């Protein structure tokens, strides 16, 4: 337009024409706020989730809280003690057999009881605080059992009053008559009870035992038969400590020089099993103190220098090739502050109190962690006992004090190592990563290693991606670059529908339809899948040697109409050829019949020694791949289609082939979108739950074997959370798994995002 043209000035418009309506402004402002609230809300929600997970997990990593509750003055002659269930009315036993009950609250005396023994004296006292059993070893070698009972009565006002009672049983002659008992032990085996006394005979220790078998008589009255006394471990010359497991299955004798001899009860007598010297490599081989840990298969030994060792019974390969349960060292504990003065095990878990060097340490045997440490009270500790529910412990010191501590330790078995390290559990033949959260027996120790689950997660993800990525990405390239738009418009929505298929349906198909279908025809499947790539290449070759006029008959982008039937045919023949291939390469001798059979599963088991499960990682990878393909495909296809046509024309006009164009222009330009797609697929595979739950055996094994199952973090949560008690270690361990999953996806996504931004920066299109 020529600027010098003179035109009449337009009539001045009213001001209002330029003012923005307040509605527009208000909408603008409010939408802005709303969007900000939404954005901040999302960030807060994510961090809130993380905070909640950490809040759930945190208690696992706090040690035990132990606080002294008070000390009760008791007679200085007290050598043993016991308690009622709540610890309100403890009793002490003096060396002369006198039993004194006191109120824990104010120390007032409740009851005093003295044995009536005639001319016999009490020479040894042993109290089992949690069962209310006290045993007196008497001066003539016999043993008297004392039963302590508490009777609760409620007065009219509903106040609880407790009335202790003491019942003394008839003494049983066990030891060599006339010799005083030095020590006495009691244990309850499956069939009978064992009473063991120790005497000194001509400067040699003498261990004698009887079995008490209780049989319910006709009248309902129990009749106890006492076996003839028998000598145990007659060959030992020195006895420092005797450990009698509460099940009476075995016997452990610690000698003066630190030699430990173990015996096993074969039903009639205790036979020698094994002897070892725990501290044989130390200067001082003596065992200063020792104690059996709950479960009766592990013993903690402490040397005079404070070294700790844990020995346990576990299956060991013998020279003759048999595997037998024998004692072996499973842990070297931390060195304590001084010589061991006592090891006292808790009930119900693997914790123990070690007294050494003026310190009390609460330790966990399995993980070796120190849960709490405190100063030991003055005076030698004579006995320590835990409450049955591990909420307090009591110690009797030689200066006539009964010290009481409360414990708050909800997760004694947890530690960083327990979740992420190799742990040697009782009964196992070596340290390992194990997840096993529950079992039938009470003595079972739950194992919460997350490593097998992380491994399973990685395995499942890798299998799924190995299967899904090549298919999804090549499909995306093909559909976006080579397929005619009419077909593309059909394929894309179909894929999107596939993406919205609930994974539980896929899992169901995988577990109940695919796995059994594929199982017997695995080789056929391999052949059919394996033939596809060479067949496609061959088809491409055939195509390239076809003369132009023939090729021109097919519109570009329609080649697949030729390819598909060809591939289907190839796959069909390969599938049919499967059994022949199996017979040719995978024939093995059947273990049952001894006849040769063509069975890949059997072949796999025999040649690799690995397991073969019909619900295996391959099936999971395959089906999980199906869950991942649509997402990866959709996102990658979108970004590939969004590559400007001008770039493609530019490349083609320079004489590049279509494939060269795709490879060197289209893919690099779309790479950030492709990476996003892959990452989202990765995220989906990592978090995928239902398919894994349904299509694998869910065993937490750590094997690279493609024909075994696995358990992933997410499947683990899905399977076990419903049965985990809130607040329990198991429950929190599951949350720790969730935390790992969260962090894993967070880290991977962040890395992917950084990578994506970089790529986008590099290949951005104007």
């Amino acid at each position, binding site marked *: 337009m020529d600027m010098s043209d003179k035109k009449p000035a337009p009539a001045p418009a009213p001001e209002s024409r330029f003012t923005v309506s307040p509605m527009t402004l208000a909408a603008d402002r409010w939408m802005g706020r709303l969007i900000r609230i939404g954005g901040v809300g999302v960030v807060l929600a994510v961090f809130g989730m993380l905070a909640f997970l950490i809040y759930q997990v945190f208690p696992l990593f706090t040690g035990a809280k132990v606080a002294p509750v008070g000390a009760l003055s008791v007679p200085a002659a007290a050598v043993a003690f016991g308690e009622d269930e709540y610890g309100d009315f403890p009793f002490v036993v003096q060396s002369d057999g006198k039993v004194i009950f006191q109120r824990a609250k104010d120390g007032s005396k409740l009851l005093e009881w003295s044995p009536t023994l005639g001319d016999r004296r009490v020479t040894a006292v042993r109290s089992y605080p949690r069962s209310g059993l006290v045993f007196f070893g008497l001066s003539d070698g016999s043993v008297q059992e004392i039963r302590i009972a508490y009777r609760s009565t409620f007065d009219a006002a509903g106040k609880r009053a407790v009335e202790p009672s003491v019942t003394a049983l008839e003494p049983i002659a066990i030891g060599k008559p006339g010799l005083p008992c030095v020590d006495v032990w009691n244990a309850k085996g499956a069939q009978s009870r064992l009473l063991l006394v120790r005497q000194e005979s001509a400067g040699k220790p003498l261990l004698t035992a009887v079995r008490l078998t209780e049989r319910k008589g006709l009248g309902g009255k129990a009749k106890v038969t006492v076996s003839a006394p028998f000598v145990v471990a007659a060959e030992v010359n020195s006895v420092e400590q005797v450990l009698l497991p509460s099940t009476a299955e075995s016997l452990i004798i610690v000698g003066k020089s630190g030699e430990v001899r173990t015996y096993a009860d074969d039903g009639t007598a205790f036979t020698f099993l094994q002897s070892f010297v725990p501290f044989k490599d130390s200067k001082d081989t003596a065992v200063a103190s020792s104690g059996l840990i709950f479960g009766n298969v592990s013993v903690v030994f402490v040397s005079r220098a404070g070294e700790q060792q844990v020995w346990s019974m576990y299956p060991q390969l013998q020279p003759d090739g048999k595997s037998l349960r024998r004692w072996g060292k499973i842990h070297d504990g931390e060195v304590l502050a001084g010589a061991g003065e006592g090891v006292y095990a808790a009930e119900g878990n693997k914790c123990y109190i070690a007294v050494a060097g003026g310190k009390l340490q609460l330790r966990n045997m399995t993980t070796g962690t120190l849960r709490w440490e405190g100063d030991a009270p003055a005076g030698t500790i004579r006995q320590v006992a835990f409450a049955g529910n591990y909420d307090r412990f009591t110690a009797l010191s030689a200066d006539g004090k009964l010290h009481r501590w409360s414990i708050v330790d909800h997760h004694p078995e947890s530690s960083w190592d327990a979740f992420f390290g190799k742990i040697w559990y009782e009964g196992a033949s070596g340290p390992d990563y194990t997840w096993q959260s529950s079992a039938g027996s009470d003595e079972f120790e739950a194992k919460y290693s997350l490593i097998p689950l992380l491994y399973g997660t990685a395995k499942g993800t890798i299998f799924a991606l190995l299967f899904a990525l090549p298919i999804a990405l090549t499909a995306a390239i093909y559909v976006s670059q080579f397929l005619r738009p009419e077909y593309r418009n059909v394929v894309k929505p179909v894929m999107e529908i596939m993406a919205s298929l609930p994974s539980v349906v896929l899992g169901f198909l995988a577990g109940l339809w695919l796995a059994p279908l594929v199982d017997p025809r695995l080789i056929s499947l391999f052949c059919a899948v394996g033939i596809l790539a060479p067949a496609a290449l061959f088809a491409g070759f055939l195509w390239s040697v076809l003369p132009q006029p023939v090729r021109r008959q097919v519109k570009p982008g329609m080649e697949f109409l030729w390819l598909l039937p060809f591939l289907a045919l190839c796959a069909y023949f390969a599938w049919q050829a499967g059994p022949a291939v199996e017979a040719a390469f995978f024939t093995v001798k059947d273990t049952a019949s001894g006849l040769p059979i063509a069975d890949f599963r059997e072949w796999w088991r025999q040649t690799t020694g690995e397991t073969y499960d019909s619900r295996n990682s391959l099936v999971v990878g395959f089906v999980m791949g199906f869950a991942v393909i649509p997402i990866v495909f959709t996102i990658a296809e979108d970004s590939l289609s969004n590559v400007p046509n001008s770039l493609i024309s530019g490349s*083609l006009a320079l004489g*590049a*082939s279509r494939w060269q164009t795709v490879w060197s222009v289209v893919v690099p330009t779309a790479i950030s979108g492709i990476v996003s797609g892959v990452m989202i697929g990765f995220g989906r595979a990592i978090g995928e739950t239902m398919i894994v739950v349904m299509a694998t055996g869910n065993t937490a094994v750590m094997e690279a074997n493609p024909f075994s199952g696995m358990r992933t973090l997410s499947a683990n949560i899905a399977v076990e959370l419903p049965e985990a008690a809130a607040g329990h270690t198991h429950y929190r361990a599951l949350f720790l798994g969730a935390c790992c999953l969260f962090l894993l996806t967070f880290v991977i996504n962040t890395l992917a995002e950084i990578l994506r931004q970089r790529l986008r920066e*590099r290949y951005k*299109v104007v």
Partner: protein
Amino acid sequence: MPEIMNPPSSSRIKVRPATEREGRKDYISIRDYGFWYGQKKALDAISLDIPERQVVAFIGPSGCGKSTLLRNLNRMNDLVDDVRHEGDITISGRSIYDAGLEVISLRRRVGMVFQKSNPFPKSVFENVVYALRVVGVRDRAVLEEACETSLRKAALWDEVKDRLDDSALGLSGGQMQRLCIARAIANRPEILLMDEPCSALDPIATGKIEELIHELKDQFTIVIVTHSMQQAARVSDRTAFFYLGKQIEYDTTEKIFMNPSQAQTEAYISGRFG
């Protein structure tokens, strides 16, 4: 260049006399060529011969089919769905639709610069040597050499020689267009198709490109689409005028601008319609 601002008029346009060269007169020969986008006929009965190593300009109002014809010369229109053609185009006597002729080799022979510059999201260097990489040249020295000569020819070397490894997308619009020209000539085609190569350029860059066309003419046969009458007059030896998919007039540039035989041509170049 004040003339550019003014409406074109035959009286003011300076026409360069056509250079006569030896070589085929019908190097590119378009015979009764028609072309359809689906049901729409975009080209109708086009017949013209383009002599070897000359510059031919296609002019005409927007939508008349210039780009369509140009894109047919290297079969870029094959990429469009549902197209059809009649008649034939031959280059050096051989039909571009010859069954034995690979479309890729056709495109290597017939280079193209697009209306809208389209550098790849790669470095300047990689853009220029793209065509060489495609044919499998790996030798770094050869690539560098080709890069420099092409960039020099495209009058871009001095501006980008220090930033060969930077992304091509950081260049200005005019630089990008020249980069696309460099990219096309690095391939050493015989024919160069240029679709409004200067539409986004300032007068100085336009001048450079026009100079470039002059130089390239010694080696290449150039077909250029332009909306600028002056440009057509300045750079071309022959000019074709199209209107609504039909070829109205095709002659030496001098004849078209000085003494057009068709009234429509006269009207168009004098700016009375279009």
